[in-house]
């Protein structure tokens, strides 16, 4: 996979995430208003002692409601080229990714609550890719893809090892509890775990092994890595169905092209050195 195609694919998945998350926020704009749980008048209080008053006044102008909606519309528009441009990382893609990244940073700064791991991954991926693109240097772009791949691998490995270190995860209890909650659970799956007593422990170990071994999939590379990424996709689709974590699909898929590209790049470097 070429550097330009990899960049476009990462941008494509980030763009889809951007459209979904931005339209979700715009459709529930009340939560950003003065009557909402993410009211800026309240959240800005935390910066009173940390930031200069003049700086805070400028930030207020951007973050206050309804101005923040304008920023969300800009973010939505910036996603269109990210989704449509494939194999052509030129000025428009650089410009759109930079706008998306800046608006993402402002929204993340404003909404300290209500974000999850998918928002954080998308923020990291878009910021890193924007940094690589605006440098107008293939080396910088490559570094940004290395960084994106690194974050993807770190995320899976950390999640796996943290679960492996937990007795509740190893015995399947954690998953049984999780499935039983209203927030992240699923009634049908909960009933199945009651019928098949070993299902929670099987599922737990499936998740632990996939996440913990992700680095091994990467090191082996080739078809093993593709199988690992396929497991990853299935894992995220499963989480979307059973835990309603739908945005994770797109923000984590955004790291996959970078992971494939970097693995092949490392392979080529090793071949040349031999």
């Amino acid at each position, binding site marked *: 996979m070429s550097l330009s195609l990899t960049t476009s694919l990462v941008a494509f998945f980030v763009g889809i995430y951007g459209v*979904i998350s931005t*339209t*979700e*926020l715009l459709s*529930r704009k009340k*939560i950003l208003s*003065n*009557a*909402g*749980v*993410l*009211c800026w008048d*309240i*959240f800005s*209080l*935390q910066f009173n002692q940390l930031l200069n008053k003049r700086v805070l006044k400028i930030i207020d102008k951007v973050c206050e409601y309804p101005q923040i909606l304008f920023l969300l519309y800009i973010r939505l528009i910036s996603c269109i080229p990210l989704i449509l441009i494939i194999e052509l990382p030129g000025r428009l893609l650089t410009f759109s990714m930079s706008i998306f990244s800046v608006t993402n940073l402002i929204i993340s*700064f404003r*909404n*300290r*609550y*209500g974000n*999850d*791991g998918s928002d*954080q991954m998308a*923020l*990291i991926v878009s910021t890193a890719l924007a*940094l*690589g693109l605006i*440098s107008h*240097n293939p*080396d*910088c772009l490559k*570094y*940004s893809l*290395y*960084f994106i791949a*690194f*974050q993807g691998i*770190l*995320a*899976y490995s*950390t*999640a796996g090892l*943290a*679960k492996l270190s*937990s007795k*509740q*995860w190893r015995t399947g209890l*954690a*998953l049984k*509890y*999780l499935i*039983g*909650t*209203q*927030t*992240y659970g699923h009634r049908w799956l909960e009933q199945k775990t009651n019928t098949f007593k070993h299902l929670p422990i099987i599922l737990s170990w499936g998740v632990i092994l996939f996440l913990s071994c992700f680095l091994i999939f990467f090191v082996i590379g080739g078809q093993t890595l593709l199988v690992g990424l396929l497991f990853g996709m299935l894992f995220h689709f499963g989480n979307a*169905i059973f835990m*309603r974590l*739908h945005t994770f699909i797109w923000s984590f898929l955004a790291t996959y092209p970078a992971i494939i590209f970097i693995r092949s790049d490392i392979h080529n470097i090793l071949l040349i050195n031999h």
Partner: protein
Amino acid sequence: MLSKIVLIIFIVWAAISIICQFKKNFLRILRTYDFWGLIPSWTFFAPNPVNSDNFLYYRDFTLNKTTEWKKANKEIKASFISLLWNPNRREEKAISDSMFQLLRLSDNFDKDRLHLTISYLAILNFITALKHEENTIATQFLFATRKFDEFTKPIFVSNIHRLT
């Protein structure tokens, strides 16, 4: 030169990311200054899993009665569309993050000053904007939790706040 600067930025960012996966205290200190959430924590439901649901309730005070506790946030029903697009989840997560943060603070924060915290004010603001009984003069909110196979029980009760 530019490529070296960019490389250094990514190396430092990656190193901090690794450290923060294992040193939670370090992460907490950095979070104070990481206004954007660029430093990740990728442990996802581990080592301590989510094992309970938290609910937000409120009640109103009129001149002659106190209402029953009512659920403040709607229950979200999963649908096929919610696999792709689920805006209710954003509000639900913002409320649950505020509740979680407030509960964390209530363990080691001066009780008399808890109502001045951002999370308390955010929830109070949300509650105040909800539909209230006619002639309501004050309102109060409560967090309740329901653990696996247990009954719902209250874990935090707010002060009573006058509505203008």
